[in-house]
């Protein structure tokens, strides 16, 4: 008789917990079956592959809650339960299930709790010599204000234990602190509110597979947007394009240290901010993250399979991997160490893969499409190509960022973004686009000799930006919001109007900068390649 293992699904699809977790659950089931287990699924989402009747050896169509899951485990007399692949839904059940006498496979519930407990985790990182942004977990507004003063504004205020950055806000000064503190407090009642230094650097993340000893990093992803945009809403590129190799290796090494300290058996995701060449850990998720399918596909590393094998005691070494970074170079794939990585001098992958978020604002009236620390996207697409620009172009087009054939490209950017508007405007004009800009942006462009038509904001009378949109005379909009709480509702109205007239609206200056890098491909799309995934992975690096 085969031993039984129960795999927990991730429940209904919501923002922050999407189809990625279904992918991981299904692969876990397959991996268990290969290892000779009877794999059983518990999930209640009718839209998924994991709840197809022939995916697992048995399917229990049940809510993913403590009592419902425990009853199935007892009924099946299962050896244990896997909580790593079902998102926050499943991982939240780790401790309660263990307390009910059920064995949790993989990373222990104690380690999971450690990674999620602010105070404990800060101490662990300090012991390991890993930097994290100064911050505090506070239980009252007064403590919060004191902490913010000590840390220094801007600070990131957010509730603990919620998914997808809900009620998370960047607070610039003490006058608006109270408002956002209250929101964070009510989003997770009875739990401390986290106040952290807001680091305006480059963000990056890694997913690691560990067997408790060795730790494999299949790849690093660099975010296109700087800190301040939720990782689920930012574009990301594998391999990194702007991080120096020493910094990259520090992330790999940090991943190894944390995985070993927490005795991770399975997957873990770590998010970083890089400021002035210093690497800070901003978040650790001791479970499969939403980037696992993306990274598995573009690196060829079967991450869920390796993680599942590690959970039942197979080491990475036994599987032919080990500690280090996965590299596909000169037609070979292997795990490399620090020396070899630093000596490489070129990308570790023959292709670039850019992930872009996709939103559903058209269906959600009154929601501001501007990006921020709270996640808003419902899905994602991937662009793969031999060049970064090609991958970028495909990701943008696939996510709906296209120019309409009629009208101008409109630039209307926040004060802090104006310097970037010049570079963006210049590339647009060089490619033959005509630009419309609100007064402030227009002035900045003019000073650099970039032609643009000055346009009125809504509050400045007619004809204005909104009229242009409604008349179908806007090809694409770049509209970046000012600091939280300091924005006029008119700016929001313009962004909403883009959504409702179907005009692509870019709300982050870094996204806009990336967009103009891909402009030549918009002009000649045939320069992008079109190949199967297998062909991309086998292609040697294109030499520029």
């Amino acid at each position, binding site marked *: 008789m085969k031993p039984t293992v129960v795999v927990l699904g991730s429940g209904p699809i919501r923002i922050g917990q999407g189809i990625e977790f279904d992918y991981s659950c299904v692969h876990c089931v397959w991996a268990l079956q290969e290892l000779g287990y009877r794999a059983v699924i518990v999930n209640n989402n009718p839209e998924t*592959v994991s709840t197809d009747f022939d995916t697992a050896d048995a399917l229990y169509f049940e809510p993913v809650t403590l009592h419902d899951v425990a009853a199935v485990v007892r009924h099946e007399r299962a050896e244990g339960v896997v909580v790593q692949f079902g998102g926050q839904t499943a991982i939240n059940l780790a401790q309660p299930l263990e307390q009910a006498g059920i064995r949790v496979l993989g990373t222990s519930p104690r380690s999971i709790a450690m990674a999620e407990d602010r105070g404990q985790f800060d101490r662990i990182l300090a012991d390991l010599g890993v930097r994290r942004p100064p911050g505090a977990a506070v239980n009252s507004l007064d403590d919060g204000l004191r902490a913010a003063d000590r840390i220094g504004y801007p600070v990131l205020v957010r509730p603990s234990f919620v998914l997808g950055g809900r009620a998370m806000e960047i607070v610039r000064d003490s006058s608006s602190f109270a408002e956002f503190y209250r929101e964070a407090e009510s989003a997770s009642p009875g739990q401390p509110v986290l106040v952290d230094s807001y680091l305006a650097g480059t963000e990056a993340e890694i997913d690691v597979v560990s067997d408790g000893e060795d730790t494999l990093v299949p790849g690093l992803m660099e975010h296109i947007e700087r800190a301040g945009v939720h990782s689920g809403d930012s574009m990301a590129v594998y391999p990194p394009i702007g991080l120096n190799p020493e910094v990259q290796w520090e992330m790999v090494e940090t991943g190894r240290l944390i995985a070993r300290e927490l005795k991770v058996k399975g997957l873990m995701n770590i998010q970083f901010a890089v400021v002035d060449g210093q690497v800070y850990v901003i978040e650790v998720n001791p479970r499969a993250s939403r980037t696992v399918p993306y990274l598995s596909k573009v690196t060829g590393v079967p991450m869920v399979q390796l993680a599942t094998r590690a959970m039942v005691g197979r080491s990475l070494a036994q599987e032919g991997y080990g500690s280090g970074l996965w590299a596909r170079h000169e037609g070979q794939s292997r795990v490399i160490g620090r020396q070899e990585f630093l000596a490489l001098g070129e990308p570790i992958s023959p292709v670039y893969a850019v992930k872009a978020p996709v939103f559903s604002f058209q269906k959600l009236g009154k929601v501001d499409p501007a990006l921020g620390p709270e996640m808003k996207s419902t899905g994602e697409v991937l662009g793969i190509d031999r060049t970064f620009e090609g991958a970028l172009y495909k990701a943008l087009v696939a996510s709906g960022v296209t120019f309409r054939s009629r009208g101008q490209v409109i630039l209307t950017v926040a004060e802090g973004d104006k310097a970037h508007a010049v570079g963006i405007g210049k590339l647009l004009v060089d490619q033959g686009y005509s630009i419309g800009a609100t007064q402030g942006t227009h002035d900045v462009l003019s000073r650099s000799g970039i032609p643009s038509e000055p346009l009125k904001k809504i509050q400045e009378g007619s004809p204005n930006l909104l009229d242009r949109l409604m008349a179908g005379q806007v090809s694409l909009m770049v509209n970046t919001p000012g600091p939280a709480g300091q924005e006029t509702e008119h700016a929001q109205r313009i962004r909403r109007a883009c959504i409702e007239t179907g005009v692509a609206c870019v709300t982050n200056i870094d996204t806009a900068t990336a967009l103009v890098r891909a402009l030549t491909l918009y002009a000649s799309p045939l320069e992008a390649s079109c190949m*199967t995934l297998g062909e991309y992975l086998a292609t040697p690096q294109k030499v520029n």
Partner: protein
Amino acid sequence: MEKILVIGSGPIVIGQAAEFDYAGTQACRSLREEGYSVVLVNSNPATIMTDEETADRIYIEPLTPEFCERVIERERPWGLLATLGGQTGLNLASQLADLGVLERYGVKLLGTPLEAIRKAEDRELFRSLMREIREPVPESWIVESEAELEALLDTAPYPCIIRPAYTLGGTGGGVARDRDELWETGRKGLKLSMRSQLMVERSLLGWKEVEYEVMRDSKGNCITVCNMENLDPMGVHTGDSIVVAPSQTLSDIEYHMLRTASLKIIQSLGIEGGCNVQLAVNPKSFDYYVIEVNPRVSRSSALASKATGYPIARVAAKIAVGKTLDEIENAVTKTTKACFEPALDYVVVKIPRWPFDKFRTGDRRLSTQMKATGEVMAIARSFEEAMMKAVRGLEVASKDLTHPDTSLSDEALEDRLRHPTDERLWHLAEALRRGWTVKRVNEVSRVDPWFIEKLLGLVEVESRLVGLRTEPSAAREVFREALDSGFDLSTVARLSGLAPEEALDSASVRLEPSYKMVDTCAGEFESDTPYYYATREVEDDAAVPQNPISVL
């Protein structure tokens, strides 16, 4: 080996979620079983369909006509299957056909012909086909001037709905109860519409909304896979409705009347594969209208598949390559064929999951625009049990029918029942908790009295549990009733203030549920599909492996 190109549905957006990975994955496997090689295009990497295990040649490329043409040019597939990639897949296929790409490369469109898809999707073509086969469609008029509006005042059926064309966020629309309101709202709508155009349509607000999932093969064999009833009456998008399968409030005559209509429709359209028919039924007569047809695999068909065990996408893919329903094996029973209509010996409840915990400023009112990002489904032997299981699986603030915020005034509550939000279920329960009669709740919300009665029963169990706080002696009986109605142990403990595990010795009330099988045939034939649901019954269908020995 002949190649078939399968188009996926791309990124997850509201209205097009994981169901198309489920359908697409099944279809790819089904085609490979038939000996075809599958070429797949999808821009969404977080899918099983873009795995080497699922397809032979995988393109993670943008879903645009340009990239699809390049894929076709490289691969030269024999056929294209587009009815499994949601509206995205279908639109791409029509674009490729219109651009002449399919013809240029000699690609055969498999499954439902484009002609049939257009007939189903084009408003006017569909209406004229329905008139031809004498199936009723709700009357509607296009109005482009005040004079036309005036001419309509005497003939329009009241109440009617006014929808101005081309306005931001549907502004200017509304319901007109009489000619004065039609004149007022209609004139405003004409001004607001950028093209001075509006549609006036018979209002079916408050009618029951029912769906049938039907399948047809190239020889014209058709079956209904299942029917489903929306708890929310017409006016709320099906994707935002609480859905029950099979229908609970239709009489046998109504059930068969609508089934016959659905089969007639799929036959007349010439669908080859799966199709979803939505109908509105007058709760007070036998009148009905055909609302819409989805000539493809949809969210509803994924739900119907899971609700019945019948793999619609798998069968649709086989139909697309010419197999007929009587030739295709029922993969669940392995003893019957795909032409057997499934039978259900349980109740299924689906509840949507909305994103308003994230979008606090979002407009929470439900209407004809879908807002849910996902959904949960629950199966049990009674509606009550399935409902309670579905609610606690939603992972929202409340794990049962109680709501953290009970401060609404009666007026506000009435307004919420009239104009439902994502919290409608809790508002219905709250009204009943306040002692509103079933009749009053029905009049305000238009939810069928049968559903309200059932919710009332659950609210009463809830209040008996709360009553144990002052009178704990009846604990055993009330606990048993609560567990049988689908309350879970933590809700029972929270409401009663007692620990049910202690009050109930296992001899008197079984705490553990039984597990029953979803076998597509209500036990009529042998089946060994390991697809189970928990319910409060004695007999157990799930065979448990004995004495597993292993060391992990």
